[in-house]
């Protein structure tokens, strides 16, 4: 029987949930990295043994990226650190927002997105990361802004089959893409609104909150924006709104079902100026037609009024045949669905502020 592992990064440490293939009952261990904000986690299932990642930030002692090859019993990092700007770079690592193992066709490659807005590449399985200098040296960088959470690359979306292509997103700055393995980068925001700027249709400067895509349909991308939910059917050249049918176009995460390229999940919040769940209900919204229509998922999610948002990386799926969906809230609750979102069980409550969740089926 296979096992499922669930990483829960919070404002004050990491918890690890484990369950069998049914994913109805969970055992939680934690916290690790107490008093560190665990803003990014990752699970690399490509090797012989799964490797876990945790990107933590101590308010006192700074950021670090750790890896574990024994499912979180022990954690390692090189003494000199996994990730950091070289001396003289006029910048220091503030936070690692994203740890993304590359697709199967790039063994050993792991990407990271960080604050200040920077992309990093590891070729040794995520032990040491190198700055992707072409994006760091981009002439637009001086004009990239900072969202409330900081100026960061928070989405790293490698193309599923073409190792030369990748999309990243940052707040604020928008979407950037490479087609030459990271040697050059161009903004890809046509159609995404930036209502907070004098020109609401700028080349870049959008506040994209999250990108998602499906390996089987690499030309289609989804974006949850700072007001606006979008789809692109041409690899990011043009974006069109798919927010009709949602109670709000504001929110942070967006996730695609692992086996159904047209099924996508979001967690709407009322508005920029009122960041609580719409109708004060903890509700994941699902579309099964690539954003044409939406339904609220309610079965097993709390009925009581809820005022806790879900952050950009606190919604995820696993890869099981009967896909699991996971959501963590800012009031420290985690809910899991073993049936694509039709029904949910509570995995945790009263944890610290949940920042990120990632899940994978092992074995």
């Amino acid at each position, binding site marked *: 029987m296979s096992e499922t592992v669930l990483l829960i990064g919070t404002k004050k440490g990491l918890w690890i949930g484990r369950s069998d293939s049914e994913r109805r009952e969970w055992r939680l261990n934690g916290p690790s990295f107490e008093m560190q904000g665990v803003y990014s986690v990752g699970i690399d299932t490509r090797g012989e043994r799964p490797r876990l990642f945790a990107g933590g930030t101590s308010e006192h*002692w700074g950021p670090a990226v750790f890896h574990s090859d024994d499912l979180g019993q022990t954690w390692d990092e090189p*003494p000199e*650190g996994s990730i950091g700007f070289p001396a003289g*770079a006029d910048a220091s690592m503030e936070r690692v927002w994203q740890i993304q193992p590359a697709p199967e066709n790039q063994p050993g490659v792991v990407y990271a997105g960080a604050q200040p807005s920077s992309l990093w590449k590891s070729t040794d399985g995520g032990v040491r990361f190198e700055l992707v200098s072409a994006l760091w040296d981009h002439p637009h960088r001086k004009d990239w802004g900072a969202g409330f959470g900081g100026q960061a690359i928070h989405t790293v979306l490698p193309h599923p089959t073409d190792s030369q292509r990748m999309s990243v997103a940052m707040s604020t700055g928008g979407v950037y893409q490479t087609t030459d393995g990271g040697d050059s980068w161009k903004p890809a925001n046509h159609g995404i609104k930036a209502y907070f700027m004098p020109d609401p249709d700028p080349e870049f400067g959008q506040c994209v909150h999250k990108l998602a895509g499906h390996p089987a349909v690499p030309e289609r991308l989804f974006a949850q924006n700072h007001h606006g939910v979008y789809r692109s059917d041409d690899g990011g050249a043009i974006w069109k709104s798919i927010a009709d049918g949602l109670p709000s176009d504001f929110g942070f995460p967006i996730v695609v079902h692992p086996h159904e390229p047209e099924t996508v999940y979001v967690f709407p919040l009322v508005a920029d100026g009122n960041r609580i769940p719409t109708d004060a209900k903890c509700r994941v919204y699902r579309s099964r037609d690539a954003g044409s229509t939406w339904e609220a998922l309610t079965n097993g999610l709390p009925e009581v009024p809820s005022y806790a948002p879900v952050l950009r990386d606190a919604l995820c799926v696993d890869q099981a045949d009967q896909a699991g969906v996971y959501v963590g809230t800012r009031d420290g609750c985690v809910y899991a669905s073993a049936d694509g979102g039709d029904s949910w069980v509570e995995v945790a409550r009263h944890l610290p502020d949940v920042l990120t969740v990632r899940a994978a089926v092992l074995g």
Partner: protein
Amino acid sequence: MSVAVKLPTVLRPFAGGAERVQVEVAGEPTVGKVFAALEVEHPALRRRLTDDQGALRRHVNVFLGNDNVRDLNALDTPLSDGDELLILPSVAGG
């Protein structure tokens, strides 16, 4: 010259468990030179005291006697043979 660095409990794992590390510094020692010397034997400790560019982290306090070195000459604060630096996290955070 030799200067000691006394560590809070939370940082001792990055110095092999030691409460106090002794650092040898050539020439005229300063706080910054002591930290630079830490890089050789205790790079994981050094990273937690200073950022990528060598600046003292915002919530890290370094005391020479009763003085916070920020109130002296910060990383350029001169030291004497036998001095001891005390590392303390600031009282901060929620």
